[in-house]
């Protein structure tokens, strides 16, 4: 029998760090996209509350394991059973998820992301669907100096490369 080796999306790419800033891989057990059918948001929220302990978050927000993921869609970190209430797709292996943390993380992202991510406007559990370089990303602030970034798995190397270059740029400025 062939022995299969599971590779994570950022295997061989992360972790990296420079000065106080570190980029590490985040490995959710499950990622299920949930798009509630018309008029079913309340029913879906009630189910999610029992499945993963959080309801559907508002636009551009995360609650616990439930992250707004675009128009009419949420990404849920955990198993769900929503037959008849929502379109559900298991996307567990489809995303590369990384955390960038440490003082100066905002400066790194400011070089790559065209929206304002400063703590005064982009607070903990705020979510943005936007761009990082040429990549479509979902960015969540998970702590004072930590952001989580999701990209399609096929873009993992580009994401890490872009972050690496920006980190060195920020470090060179001192």
């Amino acid at each position, binding site marked *: 029998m062939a022995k299969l080796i599971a590779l994570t999306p950022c295997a061989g790419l992360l972790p990296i760090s420079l000065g106080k800033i570190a980029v590490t891989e985040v490995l959710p057990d499950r990622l299920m996209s949930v798009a509630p059918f018309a008029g079913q948001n309340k029913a879906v929220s009630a189910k999610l509350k029992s499945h993963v302990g959080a309801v559907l978050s508002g*636009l*551009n927000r995360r609650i616990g394991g439930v992250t707004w993921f*675009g*128009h009419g*869609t949420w990404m849920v970190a955990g198993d769900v059973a929503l037959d008849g209430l929502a379109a559900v797709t298991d996307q567990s292996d489809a995303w590369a998820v990384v955390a960038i943390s440490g003082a100066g993380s905002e400066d790194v992202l400011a070089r790559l992301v*065209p*929206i304002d991510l400063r703590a005064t406007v982009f607070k903990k559990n705020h979510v*943005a*669907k*936007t*761009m990082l370089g040429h990549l*479509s990303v979902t960015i969540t602030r998970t702590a004072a100096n930590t952001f989580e970034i999701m990209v399609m798995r096929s873009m993992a190397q580009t994401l890490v490369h872009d972050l690496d270059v920006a980190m060195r740029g920020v470090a060179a400025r001192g």
Partner: protein
Amino acid sequence: MRITCPNCGERDRREFYYQGDALALDRPSQDAGLSVWDDYLHNRGNPAGDTKDLWFHEAGCGAWLVVDRNTVTHAVHKAVLAEKVKR
């Protein structure tokens, strides 16, 4: 040029994909006749001034928007979700 997405807030134009005249939402009935369908499929105005277009928030929330803007001044007046537009 910046567009205020009803979901995401004010964003740079490069996050959006341009489709064309929002007239595309006014689909004629199936039995409207050839000339009406010909007009719907092929003919568009080329206004110098206010216009309504369909834009897709491709690198954002993925919503289709109807954007009111001015082709002369480049002002963007407002954007609404295409699904909320009365048809």
